[in-house]
Structures are given as structure tokens and as C-alpha cells.
């Protein structure tokens, strides 16, 4: 996993040094080129070696998904702020988390905090559940299921 | 219309108006935490103000100031929340 990432970076630097142009377009092109070359070279090796090549597209999809969610929620909040009537139904929800280590909990908390309308208020002492303040609370079960499916499961899939 | 004149006539007034709104909340805020959040947002909008100003002045050296401000912006909030927490426990 880490070995292939370092090899990919090394190939990128070789590409940048050979072409002699240091800018982001060239750097990104070298990164993509190195990724495909390494993928071609490891096509006969063991499955755990190839894990890196399936994880990188997943990370990209997750980031795009997260940006889309962030924009959508931002627009919803924006409409609510600008129009005269307030439609907010805020509430604090107890949410059981599957994340175990401190790093996973930190990432989950950051992602929850960056989507507008939701915010983590407190973490239990034994790290088994967190308390989320949300602005549009219609159905508690639905909210918890959506959070579980869309955010936490995908995040843990990437981190583990 | 050039970019600079557009930024000065349309975008800069919007930023200044929002700075005034945040400052109103800073003056009004019923509790201390309201003022702390307003201060934090003032600094964050200040970072955007500096970025816009470096666009208008066509001088990238101002972005260094913005970077340092973005680094230390959250320290004030952390310090205030620590202090409020301690004060509540001690009395």
C-alpha cells in the first residue's frame, strides 16, 4: 500500500525532472501516468498488492460525493437564511458510531462538522456514541440511517 | 470592464457589508460565546478580504499575511473555550 504510493511519487518526480516544467498540470499528469504504469506492472502479482489501485479511485469518488453533499446542504441553508420564514427544526441526536480509533473518530467528526446544518456537540467518555446537533430534523431513524449509509460506512471502508 | 474595477464596485462592498453584520452581532451577542464566534468569523472573513485585496492590488505578497492569519485564527477560539470551561468548573 504505502510502497506503491512512494513508487508512484518517485515516478512522478522522474517525469517532472525529465520534462523540466514544474507546474500543477505537469505534476498531475505525471502522477496519473505513474499510476497507470504501476498498474500495468503489477497485473500478475498477489491481490493484496493490488489494493492500492482500487483504493485511489474510491478516495476520489468519496471526495466528489462529499463536495456535492456540502454544496447541496449549503444551498438549502442559504435559501432558509434569505427567505423571511424560518423552517428550521433543530435537535440533538445520540448517534452510535462504529469508528474505534481516535483518528477515525476525528475524521468522522470533521466531515460531520463541514456539512452545514450538522455539528458534533459532545463525544461520550467510552467513545461509543456521539451527540449530533442537526438543523432539519424530520425523522430520527431516517437521519441516522442516511448518516450511516452515506458517510460513516464509506469513510471506514477507506480508512481500514 | 476590467476585473479590478468589477471587484472594487461589486464584490468588495458585499464583503464590507457582511463584516458590518458580523460586527453588529459582536456588539449585540447576549452571551460571551456569541461574541467569540463572531470574532472567529471576523478573522475568517478577514482572510478572504486580504485574498481579494491581493487580487485588486495585483500583488501576491499579501497572501503570506492571509496564510499566517488562517493558521492562528482558531487559536483564539480554543483559548476562549478553554478559559470559559475552567471558569465554569472553578466557581
Amino acid at each position, binding site marked *: 500500500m504505502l510502497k506503491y504510493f512512494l513508487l508512484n511519487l518517485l515516478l512522478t518526480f522522474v517525469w517532472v525532472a525529465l520534462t523540466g516544467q514544474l507546474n500543477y498540470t505537469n505534476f498531475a499528469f505525471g502522477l496519473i501516468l505513474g499510476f497507470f504504469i504501476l498498474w500495468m506492472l503489477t497485473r500478475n502479482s498477489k491481490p493484496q498488492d493490488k489494493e492500492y489501485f482500487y483504493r485511489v479511485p474510491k478516495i476520489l469518488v468519496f471526495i466528489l460525493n462529499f463536495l456535492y453533499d456540502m454544496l447541496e446542504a449549503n444551498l438549502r441553508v442559504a435559501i432558509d*437564511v434569505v427567505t423571511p420564514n424560518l423552517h428550521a427544526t433543530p435537535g*440533538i441526536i445520540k448517534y452510535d458510531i462504529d469508528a474505534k480509533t481516535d483518528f477515525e473518530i476525528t475524521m468522522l467528526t470533521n466531515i460531520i462538522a463541514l456539512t452545514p446544518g450538522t455539528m458534533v456537540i*459532545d463525544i461520550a467518555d467510552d467513545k461509543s456514541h456521539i451527540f449530533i446537533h442537526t438543523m432539519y430534523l424530520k425523522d430520527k431513524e431516517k437521519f441516522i440511517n442516511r448518516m450511516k449509509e452515506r458517510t460513516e460506512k464509506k469513510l471506514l471502508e477507506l480508512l481500514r | 470592464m476590467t476585473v479590478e474595477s468589477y471587484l472594487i464596485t461589486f464584490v468588495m462592498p458585499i464583503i464590507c457589508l457582511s463584516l458590518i453584520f458580523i460586527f453588529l452581532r459582536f456588539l449585540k451577542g447576549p452571551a460571551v460565546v456569541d461574541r*467569540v*464566534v463572531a470574532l472567529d468569523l471576523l478573522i475568517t472573513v478577514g482572510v478572504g478580504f486580504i485574498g481579494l485585496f491581493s487580487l485588486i492590488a495585483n500583488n501576491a505578497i499579501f497572501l503570506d499575511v492571509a496564510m499566517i492569519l488562517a493558521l492562528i485564527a482558531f487559536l483564539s477560539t480554543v483559548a476562549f473555550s478553554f478559559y470559559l*470551561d475552567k471558569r465554569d468548573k472553578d466557581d
Partner: protein
Amino acid sequence: MTDTFIMVLSTIGAVFILIASIGILRMPDFYTRLSITIKAGTLGIGCILGAAAIHFSEFSITTKVFAIIFFLFITSPVAAFLIARTSYVTGIKLWSGTVMDELKGRYSTPKVSSKESTTSSNKNIE
């Protein structure tokens, strides 16, 4: 073409900042204010700095802009979480339209939940 892109991006960023400032002025209670402002402001500043990066289009400046956006995206959730927790512990009231509060009762007696730190600080005073 580049000029149009810079104009559109900076206008979007300014509008997001304006929405955040209107939100901090007219939302009813502290928690809704916090959950609007921190993120809308961060997104707006991301847009404006992106416009600056496109305008200069140099390697060093683009790196600087990425660093600023990265710092903001890392630090603002931490600050928001800390101040929200502190305000709940110190007893800032929720809005009357709040639907449910499952955190209720956890901090009704603040001395119990934070026994160790309280005793240690008392020792220091004595």
C-alpha cells in the same frame, strides 16, 4: 475567459460570506448560528482564494492558496466543536423550537461528569 471565471468565482464566494453574516445576525439561538456560520464562511473563502490562484497562476502562489484552504478546513471544525461543547457545559439555552434534546441530563450537574479535573483544580487552589 479567465477574467469571466475569476468574476464568477469571487462573486459566489462573496455571496456565501454574505449569507453567513446574515445567518449570524438573524438565527434564533447560538447552536444554529454556529452551525451556519463556520461552514458557509469557509466555503466562501475557498472560492475567493481559488479566484486569486487562477488570477496569478504561478506554482508558488497556488501552493500557498492550497495551504490556506487546507488550514481553514482542518481548524474550523475543531474550533466549532470546542466552542459548542463549552457552551453546552456552561448552560447556553437551546431555541424554543428545538424538537429533541438527547444530551439533556448529562450536564445538569456539571460537577459530577468532570469529577477528576474538578478535584485536581481544587487541589491546586488549596
